[in-house]
């Protein structure tokens, strides 16, 4: 008697175990371990997201409808993340959802009704989907509704919020899953089975890419004004916004914009469910018989034009027989194994995601959606060398090389490897070389060619050639390094027990983050080097040296007399002599497998060898750097004549320049590390009206160094000495920019009788309530010593200085600009001598300027360079805090006012006329007694 329920249970358990395409993700993978791993990964990610969201909501004073509306960013993020996670789950279960030939052959011959098979499969799929949704929302599903509850409030509001959250999540997840299912179902229905089998792999990869790309390209809800009418059309196209609308509607609609979004989402859900249900039912009730009749894998002719072209080219270029055999074996394996293709696609997918993340500024520049934050986007131009496109090239190269390396490690038809054993008539070096050639041919060169074409199309020939050269050397470095320990034939080595199940492990994530960081830093260094010959030469030499070293290392390992081609993962060296297993190796070779059994070099010798080699390398690099700095410095200073007068203030001189006759004396105080000469343009503007002076602080420009510490008090004393010498006669109007403002405040506090008024130009400042401590002296000295070392060895110039200075500052001629830039990075070194915190405290405790006019100029804009709109928004928020904080400077005088300038910190660079105007305002007051008691904030 056939028990249908029992049959259902047996089939359900079997289908559930086979739901994820284990063959794709782990060759010898244990499904249960894999499921536990995936669930843990999703839940862990969700825990982090929950923490961030809860912290973000803590301290908010919004509640009810206002909070619900303000949280659309979070809600859209959760919907988008659910969609992409479930979508990826659907891609991973691609081959496990619809009936395959194995199901049909085995089950078709048994007395099991198609209805039972269908329901069991449906139940297994539903279970998988449910577990995936639960894991991906385990913590946000409980805690998010608590911090952003329903406007009803109270426990009922929380419960309603939880219900709304989960209903929306299930709807979004079902939409994503059924959309992928519908796509697959339509293909199964419309196409002949053989054709479907052939293109199924490509469809799977394309779906994966679309999901990842869509996730990163969709503008985040934090950036989009959801209530703005201009954005409605776009939101109607984006699935994550539909379910944002659904969530808002379920919580009690707070705005009319959400209803059409929710309706669109529900309609889309109904459509994909209908299509997928229909296709699914058809596949099981009508399609099984047809599937059995079809050949398993399409016996298609593999002589596509690409295959023929590849064979012809390989025949010409790969002269060595082993090279040809191994490269073609690897190429065909990669092209025809869905298992290996998906592994490589995972790496490339991550590269695509990183690239999209970097390139968003190019994609969204000029976009209507990003109009509110356009001015804060990075100003890089795609047709000039820029960080974003450099990163794209390097990321794809790294992903291609290491993804292919991972694919090479994964076995393909292990039992067929015997043919390599019985034909192994060449030295192991020949096989290792062939494997490395495979890496060049299949991974590195294709990316290199595509990158070359792309960069040539958008950049000038000079930059293109420089980058391509570096790219080629970097490619060699990556390939040689990645293949150094590869003693196998691609796809032709087994795993040790327990070693094979690592589809996307934590180590992959850690190495991925490390590589991302290195690529980012490396690209920034390259960007600074492009267009500057000396720096480029140094960078190229370093990368070339690393590449040659990697090559040498590879060669040494490949030619090692103990090296053997691994076709089985070897036994641990301490177990091998026990001779428990004598298969797989012939004679003496069994004890001499590769690096595990190399002669043991004592640790002390290895450490010593590494230490002295590193020391020699360091000495060579530093010597080269010192020469580089000295030569560069001399070239910069060639033909530069000092400007100003050197005034002896007792054992050392300070360089001063004063122009104009009429008093009081305006003293222009530079920012940290800055030269007095930078004020020459403003000096020229003011000189017809007032005596205007600038000077170089000790150690800067043409002034002698001064004794440490160079705190604000010390600089104020130097200034006082100049005043007493008559170089800058009192009374003074002090105009201090940035760090110069701190010196001005300390001077005014110590010598108020000298000061008639003050202009603070985005002065350095610390909140009155903020508790800061001076650095310990030893730390200060250490930082200064390090800065000096980096300066003298050229490291500082290489990493930070020598940037293209760009056009001259407003008011400066080209010659003056050139003179200003001739001092290189010395100012940076001098700045490290300043006990910064101690000086800020000195300024904070300085006496007020009672009755004296003070104008506080504050920068109203952050510096441009945000890489994406999220960063731009954050920078703007921080700038607003800064403007608020600068109001505290108004306490310096009862006649102070703040002016917020439409400029970033360097007001002198962007809007020098505001400084000139502020000085004139103060002068007018000092001379004419004008009333500046209108305290407040004005914006210029």
């Amino acid at each position, binding site marked *: 008697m056939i028990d249908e329920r029992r049959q259902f249970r047996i089939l359900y358990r079997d289908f559930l175990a086979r739901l994820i395409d284990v063959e794709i993700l782990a060759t010898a993978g244990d499904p249960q371990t894999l499921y536990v791993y995936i669930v843990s990964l999703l839940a862990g990610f969700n825990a982090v997201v929950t923490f961030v969201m809860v912290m973000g909501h803590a301290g908010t004073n919004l509640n009810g409808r206002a909070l619900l509306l303000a949280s659309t960013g979070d809600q859209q993020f959760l919907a988008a993340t659910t969609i992409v996670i479930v979508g990826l789950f659907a891609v991973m279960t691609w081959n496990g959802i619809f009936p395959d030939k194995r199901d049909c052959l085995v089950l078709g011959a048994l007395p099991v009704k198609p209805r039972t098979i269908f329901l069991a499969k449906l139940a297994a799929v539903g279970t998988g989907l449910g577990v995936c949704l639960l894991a991906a929302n385990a913590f946000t599903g409980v805690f998010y509704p608590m911090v952003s509850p329903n406007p009803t409030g109270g426990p009922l509001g929380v419960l309603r919020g939880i219900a709304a959250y989960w209903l929306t999540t299930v709807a979004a997840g079902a939409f994503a899953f059924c959309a992928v299912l519908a796509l697959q179902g339509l293909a199964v229905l419309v196409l002949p089975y053989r054709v479907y089998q052939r293109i199924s792999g490509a469809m799977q990869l394309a779906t994966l890419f679309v999901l990842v790309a869509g996730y990163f390209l969709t503008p985040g809800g934090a950036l989009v004004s959801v209530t703005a009418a201009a954005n409605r059309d776009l939101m109607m196209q984006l699935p994550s916004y539909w379910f944002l609308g659904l969530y808002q509607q379920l919580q009690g609609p707070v705005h009319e914009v959400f209803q059409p979004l929710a309706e669109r989402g529900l309609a889309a859900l109904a459509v994909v469910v209908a299509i997928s249900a229909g296709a699914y039912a058809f596949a099981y009730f009508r399609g099984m018989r047809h599937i059995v009749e079809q050949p398993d894998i399409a016996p298609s002719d593999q002589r596509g034009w690409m295959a023929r072209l590849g064979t012809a080219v390989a025949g010409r270029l790969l002269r060595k027989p082993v090279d040809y055999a191994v490269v073609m074996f690897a190429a065909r394996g990669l092209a025809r194994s869905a298992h290996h293709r998906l592994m490589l696609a995972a790496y490339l997918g991550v590269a695509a995601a990183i690239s999209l993340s970097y390139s968003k500024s190019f994609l969204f520049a000029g976009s209507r959606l990003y109009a509110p934050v356009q001015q804060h986007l990075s100003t890089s131009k795609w047709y000039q060398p820029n960080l974003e496109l450099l990163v794209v090239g390097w990321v794809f190269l790294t992903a291609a090389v290491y993804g292919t390396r991972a694919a090479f490690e994964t076995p393909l038809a292990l039992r067929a490897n015997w*043919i390599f054993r019985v034909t192994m008539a060449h030295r192991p070096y020949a096989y290792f070389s062939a494997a490395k050639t495979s890496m060049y041919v299949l991974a590195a060169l294709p990316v290199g060619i595509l990158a070359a074409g792309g960069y040539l199309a958008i950049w000038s020939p000079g930059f293109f050639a420089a980058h391509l050269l570096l790219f080629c050397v970097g490619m060699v470095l990556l390939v040689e390094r990645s293949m150094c320990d590869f003693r196998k034939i691609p796809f032709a080595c087994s795993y040790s027990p327990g070693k094979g199940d690592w589809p996307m492990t934590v180590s992959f994530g850690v190495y991925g983050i490390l590589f991302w960081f290195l690529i980012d830093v490396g690209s920034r260094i390259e960007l600074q080097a492009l267009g500057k010959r000396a720096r480029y030469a140094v960078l190229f030499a370093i990368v070339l040296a690393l590449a040659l070293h990697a090559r040498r290392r590879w060669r040494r390992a490949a030619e090692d007399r103990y090296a053997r081609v691994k076709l089985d993962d070897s036994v641990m060296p301490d177990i091998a002599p026990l001779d428990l297993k004598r298969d797989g190796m012939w004679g003496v070779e069994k004890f001499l497998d590769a690096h595990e059994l190399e002669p043991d070099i004592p640790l002390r010798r290895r450490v010593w060898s590494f230490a002295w080699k590193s020391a020699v390398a360091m000495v060579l690099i530093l010597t080269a750097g010192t020469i580089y700095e000295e030569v560069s410095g001399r070239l910069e200073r060639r033909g530069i004549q000092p400007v100003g007068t050197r005034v002896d203030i007792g054992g050392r001189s300070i360089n001063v320049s004063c122009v104009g006759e009429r008093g009081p004396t305006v003293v222009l105080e530079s920012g940290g590390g800055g030269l007095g000469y930078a004020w020459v343009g403003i000096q020229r503007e003011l000189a017809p009206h007032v005596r205007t002076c600038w000077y170089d602080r000790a150690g800067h420009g043409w002034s002698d160094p001064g004794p440490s510490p160079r705190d604000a008090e010390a600089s104020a004393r130097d200034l006082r000495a100049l005043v007493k010498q008559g170089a800058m006669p009192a009374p003074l109007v002090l105009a201090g920019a940035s760090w110069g403002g701190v010196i001005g405040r300390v001077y005014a506090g110590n010598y108020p009788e000298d000061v008639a008024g003050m202009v603070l130009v985005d002065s350095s400042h610390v909140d009155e309530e903020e508790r800061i401590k001076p650095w310990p002296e030893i730390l200060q000295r250490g930082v200064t010593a390090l800065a000096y070392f980096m300066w003298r060895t050229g490291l500082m110039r290489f990493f930070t200085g020598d940037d293209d200075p760009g056009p001259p500052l407003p008011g400066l001629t080209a010659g003056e600009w050139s003179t200003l830039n001739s001092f290189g990075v010395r100012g940076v070194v001098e700045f490290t001598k300043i006990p910064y915190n101690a000086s800020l405290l000195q300024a904070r405790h300085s006496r007020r300027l009672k009755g004296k006019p003070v104008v506080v100029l504050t920068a109203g804009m952050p510096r441009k360079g945000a890489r994406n709109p999220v960063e731009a928004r954050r920078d703007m928020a921080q700038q607003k805090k800064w403007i608020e904080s600068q109001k505290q400077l108004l306490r310096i005088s009862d006649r102070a006012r703040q002016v917020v300038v439409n400029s970033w910190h360097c007001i002198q660079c962007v809007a020098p006329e505001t400084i000139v105007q502020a000085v004139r305002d103060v002068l007018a007051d000092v001379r004419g007694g004008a009333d500046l008691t209108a305290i407040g904030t004005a914006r210029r």
Partner: protein
Amino acid sequence: MLELRHVTKRYSGIAVVNDVSFTARAGEVTGYLGPNGSGKSTTLKMITGLIEPSEGEILVNGEPVERDWVAHRQRFGYVPEEPQLYPHLTGAEYLEMVGRLRGLDPGQLAEKIIRLLRLFGLEGDRHVAIASYSKGMRQKILLSAALLHNPQLVFLDEPFSGLDVNSALVVRGVIQALAREGRAVLLSSHELEVVEKVCSRVVILHKGRVVADDSISALQSLMSLPTLEEIFTQLAVEQDTEGVVRQILDVMAL
């Protein structure tokens, strides 16, 4: 000439091939027979180097093979029992890979491949992936791969498995021709009728030990049995086959 001297293979102390000694001479087809699990395939794997013997020596032309393993690999062609091939490659691609790995000239290799495939009736399927091949087609590919480099020694483990009558006749003819041309052929097969027609000598293995090593005619005369099947049954088969048949029918009726 291939010679095994006291070759033994142990797994966890159990000898699956126990003190086996025999010679396969040039110009002869030597049959290597035995029931399932008697050690035939293990012996062939030791000869081809896929497995290391626990004891004993394997010599070719009087020289131990381990002295020049590379030369030994160049000399033999091997058809394993299981037709394990790379499913993603086509028949032509597989043969090309094997030929290249053996260092054959590309031009000659291409000619050899097309002619062998034609002769085995696989020319029309040469660009189809091996995953689509039937068992017989895979067997033909294995045979082609074993003969590509014109080996002096040929080791065949169940070469007729999966072949249709025509192909089996061709393979039989090839085996005989190889021996006539002076090659040493070691043939392991359950097809006793074919072995009887093709082989000049047989070595019969039972529980890892050689129980007979002589020409078929000498064995027939010695044991007074007319056919190789009867000789084999007498020496290597312990089961009461008729009794087993009766018991199977009893189990079905339970």
